[in-house]
């Protein structure tokens, strides 16, 4: 199964490398959102000096990341044609398919969120108290978005009517994750060290563990028609 997963992962990356469609479209989406926010906030002068600025900075970053993630990951199953799914079904293990998609989406989100963080910091200047911990939060965020949205995208694609259902199903599931992420990253901004916020890190790892385990158990039932 491990070998199959790696082969499928290689295939996903190769397809993406040839067209670069998903990556470029989501990157453009993120850049335009950040720029729209930049323009909109610069309409009210003095905002950068106001007391609530760090809080808005942090929350806005995660909201942008959330919508970018939904857009990026919704594609992973919705664009797969029926014929190709049938082909996978005849040659591979179901768990290898979901695992490879999750890992691929995790990598995609990791690159995207790192780039977003750089672009975002460029437009909205802010000092991070503990950059290492903030990056850890971004890393955990990318992984969590990928694990949750990949499974929800699989469910939504099977249900037939794509992206509308995707939003309805995924937002209640992602809210505990994003609340924890915002708290963790706010702590990182305030320069609190990792040891004293480890409960949030443990919670995120635990949520990911549960979601991956349930995905691996449930996906074999889901893709069988």
């Amino acid at each position, binding site marked *: 199964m491990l070998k199959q997963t790696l082969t499928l992962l290689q295939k996903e990356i190769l397809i993406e490398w040839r067209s670069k469609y998903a990556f470029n479209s989501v990157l453009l989406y993120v850049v335009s959102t950040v720029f729209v926010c930049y323009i909109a906030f610069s309409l009210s002068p003095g905002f950068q000096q106001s007391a609530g600025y760090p809080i808005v900075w942090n929350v806005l970053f995660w909201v942008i990341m959330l919508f970018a993630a939904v857009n990026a990951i919704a594609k992973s199953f919705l664009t797969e044609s029926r014929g190709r799914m049938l082909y996978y079904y005849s040659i591979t293990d179901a768990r290898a398919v979901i695992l490879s998609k999750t890992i691929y989406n995790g990598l995609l989100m990791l690159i995207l969120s790192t780039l977003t963080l750089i672009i975002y910091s460029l437009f909205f200047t802010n000092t991070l108290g503990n950059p290492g911990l903030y990056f850890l939060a971004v890393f955990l965020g990318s992984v969590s978005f990928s694990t949750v949205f990949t499974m929800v995208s699989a469910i939504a694609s099977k249900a037939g009517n794509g992206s509308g*259902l995707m939003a*309805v199903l995924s937002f*209640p*599931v992602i809210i*505990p994750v994003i609340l924890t992420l915002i708290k963790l990253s706010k702590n990182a901004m305030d320069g609190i060290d990792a040891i004293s916020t480890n409960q*949030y890190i443990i*919670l995120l790892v635990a949520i990911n563990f549960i979601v991956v385990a*349930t995905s691996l158990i449930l996906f074999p*039932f889901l893709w069988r028609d």
Partner: protein
Amino acid sequence: MKFIYQTWWKVLTVILIGSTFITGLLFKVPRLDILHETIRNLYFHVPMWMGMLTVLVVSVFYSVRYLANPKEEYDIAAVECVNTGLFFYAIGLVTGMMWAKYTWGEYWSGDPKQNSAAIAFLLYCAYVVLRNSIDEEQKRAKIAAIYNIFAFPIMVVLIFVLPRMTDSLHPGSGGNPAFGKYDLDNGMKLAFYPAMLGWSFLALWIATLRFRIRTIEYKKNAVN
């Protein structure tokens, strides 16, 4: 499924809930600041969540059974348990809000426990929406079962784990002690545990009735 046709536990339910109204409303309770007599709501607010949890666990059980062996009746059992769970959910939220009005000052004060509960409500509303979006019966049953199993651990994290990690006014959260630790004296336990059991059984009873009605409807519509 013989259990649902038996009488003894229904009689027990009536006795337990009937006794709860007497013991809960008339027995002596400890005098505490802020809480005063509203402490009696403990016998009605907490058991609602217990009832919800009971039927949702049963629902997950039948979703698992459906995936193992796709029989229509398992799907009907799962969905009717979720419907009953949503009903108890709403009552749990409303009794909690009334209690909050008299102790915290407002019906909805944006407490993490309340917010988490509202989000978890959306989680199960999404289950209902998902079911409505699929026409084909077997496909609907299968996908709904998968989502139900997927949603349950998230609901547990939302309601029972996340509020404990933040500042919340709710007992048992954010370093606040739960009632069990200090305030629940033996007199209260006498009323509290039967209430928990009684309302859980009542939730199960409502779910089984709904299940039986739906099964009859299903059989009536079936083509021979």
